[in-house]
């Protein structure tokens, strides 16, 4: 087992026991790649396919494939994909192949790019990637992070200087084994000014980090996580305290990341924090990753036909923000908008608006309106008096912002 697997779809485990989750994760890590159906396993109900016990009432979204886990003594449900206990690797792989076929024949309403994720098993992770237990954590032995983990790396699909695909990305080369991770360039200072700037520099692996973080947040269970960037530092996250620690500025970590891994685990609420409190606000990390990931396209969990509204303003005094972000927050704070409408209201590009929505969504700040019948919102800025611009524009100029 190496670390060359490319997951095309995500698999959510919902309502399963820890042993069932562990078995499924192990089977996928050990068997799925060879069988040609790699999956990214997450503890989330917003994945492409879901495994849910047959005795749990559950309705999947239309884009999802539902697989029922039929435990001993329960009856399979007619017409649904099922696997039975005791779980076997062969049966799991077989059912996942069916799910994969099912997904590949569907035309998703939103044109989300297939997942490009490399998974690695625990043994492939360098020894120093193991979870370090800080003094006073309360357990004498290291607490391995094996629950809900998704170890990810940058896709080895480089581009040439002119932006065209590198020859290594051509179909003939796609199945060539990845020998070694790309060398990491020495850390470069990054100007941390525009919140959405330099997005093209952002490694594609962070898209998957964003998906994994979103999954953990949606799970709402007490959890901790570590994001390790090779040759740099580790970002430690404690979701219970909505805090993280990183000794290197985020901009520098992200710009230099070539191999990235995230590991998460559920923890008991009474366990001491794994970050030095108060730490940095998790919103800061989510704002950064959310606004940079996905290359200006909508996050996979957002639906283009939905509209969104802020539940509360982001805490701009602690975020690296641009003045335009305030106008965007003011717009989406006062009415439900989609990306195009937000762009129109705030006077920003649709791409910036999409990045803003991605970030707000990851931060958990959005309410969703699924009413498809609502008329599209159009915005026309009020006529300006002579002298140009409202007070906001004038103050912006005055304050040099």
């Amino acid at each position, binding site marked *: 087992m190496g670390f060359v697997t490319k997951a095309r779809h995500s698999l959510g485990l919902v309502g399963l026991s820890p042993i069932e989750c562990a078995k499924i994760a192990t089977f996928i890590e050990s068997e799925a790649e060879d069988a040609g159906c790699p999956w990214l396993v997450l503890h989330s109900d917003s994945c492409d396919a879901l495994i849910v016990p047959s005795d749990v009432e559950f309705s999947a979204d239309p884009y999802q494939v539902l697989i029922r886990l039929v435990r001993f003594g329960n009856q399979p449900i007619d017409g649904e994909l099922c696997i039975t206990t005791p779980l076997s690797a062969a049966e799991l792989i077989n059912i996942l192949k069916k799910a994969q076929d099912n997904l590949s024949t569907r035309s998703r309403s939103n044109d989300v790019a297939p997942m490009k994720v490399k998974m690695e098993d625990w043994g492939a992770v360098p020894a120093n990637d193991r979870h370090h237990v800080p003094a006073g954590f309360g357990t004498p032995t290291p607490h391995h992070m094996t629950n809900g983990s998704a170890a990810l790396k940058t896709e080895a699909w480089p581009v040439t200087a002119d932006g065209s695909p590198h020859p290594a990305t051509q179909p003939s080369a796609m199945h060539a084994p990845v020998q070694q991770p790309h060398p990491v360039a020495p850390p470069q200072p990054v100007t941390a000014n525009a919140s959405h700037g330099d997005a093209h520099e952002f490694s594609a692996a962070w898209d998957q980090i964003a998906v994994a973080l979103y999954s953990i947040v949606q799970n709402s269970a007490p959890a901790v996580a570590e994001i390790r960037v090779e040759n740099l530092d580790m970002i430690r996250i404690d979701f219970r305290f909505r805090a993280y620690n990183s000794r290197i500025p985020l901009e520098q970590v992200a710009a230099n990341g070539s191999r990235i891994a995230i590991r998460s685990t559920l923890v008991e609420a009474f366990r001491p924090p794994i970050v030095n409190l108060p730490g940095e606000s998790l919103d800061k990390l989510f704002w950064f990753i959310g606004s940079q990931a996905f290359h200006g396209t909508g996050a996979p969990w957002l639906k283009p036909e939905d509209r969104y509204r802020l539940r509360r303003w982001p805490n701009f005094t*602690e975020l690296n923000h641009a003045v335009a972000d305030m106008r965007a*927050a*003011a717009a989406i704070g006062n009415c439900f908008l989609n990306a195009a409408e937000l762009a129109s*209201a705030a006077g920003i590009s649709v791409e910036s608006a999409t990045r803003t929505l991605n970030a707000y969504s990851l931060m958990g700040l959005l309410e969703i309106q699924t009413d498809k019948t609502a008329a599209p919102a159009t915005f026309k800025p009020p006529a300006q008096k002579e002298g140009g611009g409202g*007070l906001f524009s004038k103050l*912006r100029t005055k304050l040099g912002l």
Partner: protein
Amino acid sequence: MAEHVILFAGPMGAGKTTAIESLSEIETIRTEATNTDRETADKDTTTVALDYGEITVSDEDKVRLYGVPGQRRFNFMWTILKERAVGLILLVNNDAADPIEELDAFLEEFGELHEKGGIVVCVTRSDVAPTPYLDKYAERIREVMPGRMIPVFTADARNADQMRTALMSLIANIEMTAMIAGNQERAA
């Protein structure tokens, strides 16, 4: 010249005077007297009438910054200043005995300013007292002023950048609310 009056309100010791000093272009006019209420705020002096600062934006626009006294016995000043104001920066110190109750009290008194313009809440001294978290403030605002979106930030009143962010967010929210209302009227 168009004048835009922004009030700074909040309990004693929340940082209103300091916030105005951080923003004002002129030397702040202060009306302070010896603080006789050391239990509420452990500081030597407190504002008894108002603080005043200003930002001259252009030949045509001036932003006037008024800090109102935090103690209720001076609330006759509140009424006078509210009439001219288009916006409010409400500062609440997180280390107060019950900061959410303080928020309630000041929103009850100054909430009407949201209809006239806008309100921003700045939670100060969260470095000293990390809780309640901002979500708690936002939740309370939704309860007492349903349907209104009031920005809530943590802030250090001494930090000019943070106070500028609060002021700019207030103005952005006021202008955006007006634009959306105008568009809705046109659509109707």
